[in-house]
């Protein structure tokens, strides 16, 4: 079979795969521009009225604010703990290191429903304040493995001689870490934190257990609206989220 025919044979498959992957996002953006009351693909004219009503809705604005605060705090916490732990794992030899590294990745493997429920029950038992504190802790636990994996991967290819050179030139350990090690690692740490932020901004499953009425996040609003009635306003809100995530993604890519 010649090469062109083979490529042709693949095309139905590719159409299906890319349709499944991309069309769901495309339709969300399209329906946010509709002039109808229902989220339909605009056929007779487009309008931005749903964005206007979105930004006049104080509940939406407050959710966007909450999600931003939570995302930033969770990303900072996950970034700090992920970097510290990755350092520890790469730079020391302890028994059962491999098994412990797998434990560090468990938040990725266990269903977020369990993580949310566990944090809610345990938190109320030991008095972790509900609302922001619980949500931020939950998101930091869920996103910590991303930072850990990315920083660990970077540390594994780290040229130790750079640090040795720094010491030889008279710097002490702390100076070496601040002037040599961290600057080299910074892009990986930031990339991990960007992923953590985007993940936190979109996380619903664990969050639904932890939100209080004053700390409702964007995905919780989207979910409630999907369940109760569909207004194109959710499409507009979701589109804002998509735009934000893509900007963050592009930033993260450039940094790394």
């Amino acid at each position, binding site marked *: 079979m010649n090469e062109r025919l083979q*490529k042709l044979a*693949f095309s139905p498959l590719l159409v299906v*795969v890319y349709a*499944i*992957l*991309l069309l*769901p*996002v*495309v*339709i*969300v953006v399209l*329906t946010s521009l509709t002039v*109808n009351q229902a*989220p*339909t*693909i605009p056929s007779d004219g487009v309008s931005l009225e749903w964005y206007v009503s979105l930004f006049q809705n104080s509940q939406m604005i407050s959710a966007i604010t909450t999600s931003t605060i939570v995302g930033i705090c969770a990303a900072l916490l996950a970034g700090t703990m992920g970097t510290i*732990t990755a350092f*520890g*794992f*790469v*730079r*020391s030899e*302890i028994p059962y290191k491999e098994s412990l590294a797998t*434990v560090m*990745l468990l938040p990725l*493997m*266990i*269903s*977020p*429903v*369990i*993580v949310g*429920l*566990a*944090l809610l*029950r*345990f*938190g109320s038992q030991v008095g972790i304040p509900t609302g922001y504190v619980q949500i931020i802790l939950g998101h930091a*636990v869920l996103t910590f*493995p991303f930072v850990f994996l990315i920083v*660990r*991967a970077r540390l594994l290819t780290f040229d130790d001689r750079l640090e040795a050179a720094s010491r030889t030139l008279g710097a*002490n*350990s*702390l*100076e070496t870490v*601040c*002037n040599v090690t961290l600057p080299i690692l910074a892009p990986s740490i930031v990339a991990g934190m960007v992923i953590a932020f*985007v993940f936190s901004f979109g996380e619903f*499953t664990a969050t*639904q257990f932890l939100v209080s009425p004053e700390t409702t996040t964007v995905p919780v609003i*989207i*979910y409630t609206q*999907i369940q109760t009635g569909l207004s194109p306003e959710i*499409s507009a809100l*979701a589109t804002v989220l*998509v735009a934000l*995530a*893509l900007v963050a*993604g592009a930033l993260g890519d450039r940094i790394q």
Partner: protein
Amino acid sequence: MRTITVSSAALPRPVRRFVSPRVLIGIGLLWLSVFFVVPVVYLLFESLNFGDGSLLANYEQALQAVYRQALYRTFGYALLTTVLTLLLGYLTAYYIAFKSSRPFLLLTLVLLPLWVAIIIRFFGVRLFFLSSGPVQQLFGTDFGIMNSRNGVILGLMSALLPFAVLPIYNSLQSIDDELIHASRTLGAGQFQTLRSVIFPLSLSGVIAATLFVFILAAGSFLAPAIMGGPSNFMMANVIEEAQSYSVSLAAAMAVVFTGSLLIVIGAFNHVANVSEVLGDL
């Protein structure tokens, strides 16, 4: 570059000793223990019945036929999703790695949806099949997607395809071209080359993809909640529902579910090192 000067004399000796790599591991373990391991273990405690009746009374309830079915359904759906997603994912990765003239573009388009929150992607799938959506407007039927198993599987495939394509593409990409040439030179046809050279060498990617897709599918709450009906609820939904009327029952189901998932992961760890597999992400 900005230089931070820290006089070593300014730091007391105990502080410098304190920041050894082992201590860093300790901080990491403590952090994850307090906010993750202990809370999950606390669910185990909450699932036990310290009142009248058997200590495991909640488990008797959690293993009732209706909840057992939900457990089977969870693993059944996860398995079905894994098989279909891997099939599509492998062919796509194969095309990108060996046939495409624009591999970078195709790969970027696979990864792009990962930046979009999963709830939005499920919402998008639903928008397609709503009564006001394009499919029903065009064909007058939703093809049995709305509120059904097929809808849940379609949603999961849409969400998880990148996790199949990416590791398989990486493993295909790292196959030495010389091996493929050698196979062809020695007279193997294209299909035989695929079967006896390319596929075996891409197994690491297939294993990683299986692990990702299966685990994420099994733990999904949103796919059944948005695309399925109550008869398609998976364990995550059942636990969330039970939580509102009986926390101890929800805890018992959480333990059963997490336990069985960990057994599957453990079995998997036997075939391939999970930590290494995830590390290649």
